[in-house]
């Protein structure tokens, strides 16, 4: 994705000049190209942010930290972990009475200003027992909070940085990566903005692929790829929706470990079979849109039908992420179904222009 962002900057030389030019009507191909460039130009900053933080999450554990261990700690991984995470405290094992968990949670909520999102306790039932109370970012800041409490006395012992044992610039930057990537720092507002930006990036990727192949679909070698784009583009989200349906359907029986991957494979198999059977590409895309929209809209209904927590209870417990996901699936599924039924949010040129058969006939950039 980072490569796609960089290639977008290099390939599109009139980035700033075309920022305000709406898609033109002179041909369908040019119209689609304008749409892609416009979406790509405006979503470029977020695309870079998402790609950079995603690359960090992908490579920090696999490459970054081992390199740090080799360079800064002479290959001593234990020493590196002690520096980055901390030294495990010695456990005496002496039994002790635990303090009331609710009291600690209330104290932490008062101290940070938000409800805790999860807690963990080490050395339960001993005099060394500690509780870590985690709060997602809230208010003006974008950093999460790891509050440490003594489980015997209930006293606050300090805040554990995400990286290292004491607050530092590196730890602060490290703690920004999650909120910047997942957008979970300002409740529903940031989630909504991040979902919109994520969809914009998906649109840019898919429309870029379409354009690249469409301009060459007259050539035999590109025809298979032209056909594969909707299969992959719609197939992945349909497969993921299948996984979610499998999870929700199997949740009451507690067998989600089997049915979640089964749902993904079943959804993907259905997409592939449809791709093999239906020859007309437009009709195939329409079938995929119906399947995607229907499965998306079905998810919140299925969640509630399988005994999931209702919205009033979720609001009361400040569990807004689930409410947001329900709303997005309902609205998103409805929009996809409307697109499948023929609704078009933007006007498009009516006549289909003949496609290029050689690279020389490809429409010039300007």
């Amino acid at each position, binding site marked *: 994705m980072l490569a796609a962002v960089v290639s977008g900057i290099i390939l599109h030389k009139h980035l700033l*000049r*075309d*920022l*305000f*030019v*709406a*898609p*033109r*009507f002179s041909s369908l191909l040019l119209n689609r190209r304008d*749409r892609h460039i*416009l*979406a790509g130009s*405006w*979503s470029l*900053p*977020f695309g870079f942010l998402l790609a950079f933080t995603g690359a960090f999450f992908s490579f920090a554990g696999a490459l970054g930290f081992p390199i740090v261990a080799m360079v800064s700690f002479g290959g001593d991984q234990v020493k590196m972990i002690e520096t980055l995470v901390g030294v495990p405290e010695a456990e005496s094992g002496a039994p002790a009475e635990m303090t009331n968990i609710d009291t600690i949670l209330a104290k932490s909520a008062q101290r940070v200003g938000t409800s805790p999102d999860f807690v963990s306790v080490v050395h339960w039932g001993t005099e060394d027992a500690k509780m870590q109370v985690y709060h997602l*970012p809230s*208010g*003006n*800041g*974008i950093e999460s909070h790891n509050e440490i409490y003594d489980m015997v006395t209930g006293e606050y012992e300090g805040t554990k940085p995400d990286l290292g044992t004491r607050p530092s610039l590196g730890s602060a930057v490290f703690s920004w990566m999650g*909120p*910047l990537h997942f*957008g979970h*720092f*300002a409740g529903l*507002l*940031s989630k909504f*903005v*991040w979902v*919109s*930006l994520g969809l*914009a990036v998906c649109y840019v990727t898919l429309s870029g692929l379409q354009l690249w192949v469409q301009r060459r679909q007259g050539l035999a070698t590109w025809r298979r790829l032209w056909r594969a784009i909707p299969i992959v583009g719609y197939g992945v989200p349909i497969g993921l929706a299948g996984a979610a349906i499998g999870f929700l359907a199997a949740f009451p029986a507690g067998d989600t470990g089997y049915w979640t991957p089964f749902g993904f494979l079943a959804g993907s198999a259905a997409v592939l079979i449809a791709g093999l059977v239906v020859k007309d590409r437009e009709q195939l895309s329409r079938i995929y849109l119906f399947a995607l929209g229907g499965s998306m809209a079905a998810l919140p209904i299925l969640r509630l039908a399988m005994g999931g927590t209702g919205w009033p209870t979720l609001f009361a417990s400040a569990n807004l992420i689930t409410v947001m996901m329900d709303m997005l699936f309902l609205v998103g599924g409805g929009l996809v179904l409307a697109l499948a039924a023929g609704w078009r949010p*933007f*006007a498009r040129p009516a006549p289909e222009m003949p496609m290029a058969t050689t690279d020389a006939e490809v429409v010039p950039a300007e």
Partner: protein
Amino acid sequence: MSPLVAFVVATATSMSAVSYLLAIDEKRQRVFSLNRRWTLPKSRLVGWIVVLAPGVVLPATGHLSAFLCWFGAVTTLSWAIASRRPLRDARAAAKT
């Protein structure tokens, strides 16, 4: 000022400036052959300064979460606005 209020004020400010830049953009006027009866004073620099000003003010006043939401919202909303064809041109295209 709450993060939500800061976000709304910042986004409204930037979007007003984006609308202004949209109205004075020469390439847009040329592509769609726009010949408006009214004209605005043209200053792209001032327009861009107003668009980007919340990006300086929000972090400087400690509104980091509002800054990030503003950053995302402005790019998405600007895309939505810029991808709409000028009204008169859209009506003409609909007739043909």
